[in-house]
């Protein structure tokens, strides 16, 4: 079937092409793999069993600016030579990359508590996991609502 190419058809096609071209770039900004957090946790901790408790992950429940989110993690541990926190890992669910921070501690730390500032791309859950010197792992999960996402601002 042959059809004369009208101006209307030409415009429609051009519109579709423009949408097609724009989609990958927009999708990239928001890209995260479903289940990436679980995969990242397993990559760092292997098959270790992760219990709930002992760890306290503190984040504001509502974040206005995802570019700077204060976060602190504290672990309930005596921090003696025989019983201390070996490492603390924090993971996110929906940033382009699932890792946030990994910290190595020892008995010299005296207190298993850290704080820093992080970026969040969207409303999501974060998990902090503490690796103890006896090999056990403990975790805490918090949900954060983000109104202005990181990584999306226009550049000059």
């Amino acid at each position, binding site marked *: 079937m042959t059809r004369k190419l009208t101006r209307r058809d030409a415009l429609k096609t051009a519109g579709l092409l423009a949408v097609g071209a724009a989609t990958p*770039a927009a999708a*990239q*900004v928001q890209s995260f793999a479903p289940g990436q957090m679980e995969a990242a946790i397993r990559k760092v901790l292997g098959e270790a069993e992760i219990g709930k408790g002992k760890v306290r992950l503190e984040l504001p429940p509502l974040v206005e600016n995802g*570019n*700077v*989110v204060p976060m*602190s993690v504290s672990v309930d541990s005596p921090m003696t030579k025989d019983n201390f926190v070996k490492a603390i890992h924090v993971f*996110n669910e929906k*940033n*382009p*990359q699932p*890792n*946030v*921070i*990994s*910290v*190595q*501690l*020892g008995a*010299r*730390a*005296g*207190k*298993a*508590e*850290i*704080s*820093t*500032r*992080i*970026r*969040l791309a969207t409303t999501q859950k974060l998990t902090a996991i503490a690796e103890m010197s006896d090999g056990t792992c403990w975790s805490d999960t918090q949900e954060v609502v983000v109104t202005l996402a*990181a*990584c999306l601002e*226009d*550049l*000059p």
Partner: protein
Amino acid sequence: MNRALISLPKSVKRGQVIEIKTLISHVMESGFRHGTNGRDIPRDIITAFSCKYNGEEIFATQFFPAIAANPFLTFHTVATESGTLTFHWTGDNGFEVIEEAQIAVE
């Protein structure tokens, strides 16, 4: 030059747990953003930080792009003896900053 700020108590009692605060100026470009021309902006972040107390490593971290610009970090240590704390940041494109701070333990 990247400016680093370190805050810790000047003099402390032996065995006391002290809080150390560090702040360093750095853009922490995540590598996930695009410029106006649509091209990716390459990643430029601090990837690692460590703290040594008289040569012994007491604290180390790996940073990821999810850390905000101008990384701020607080951590703790037990004041065992007078001496020097060495702070060491390393990152992409050969980034390296070393800072020192003195501590007096009574």
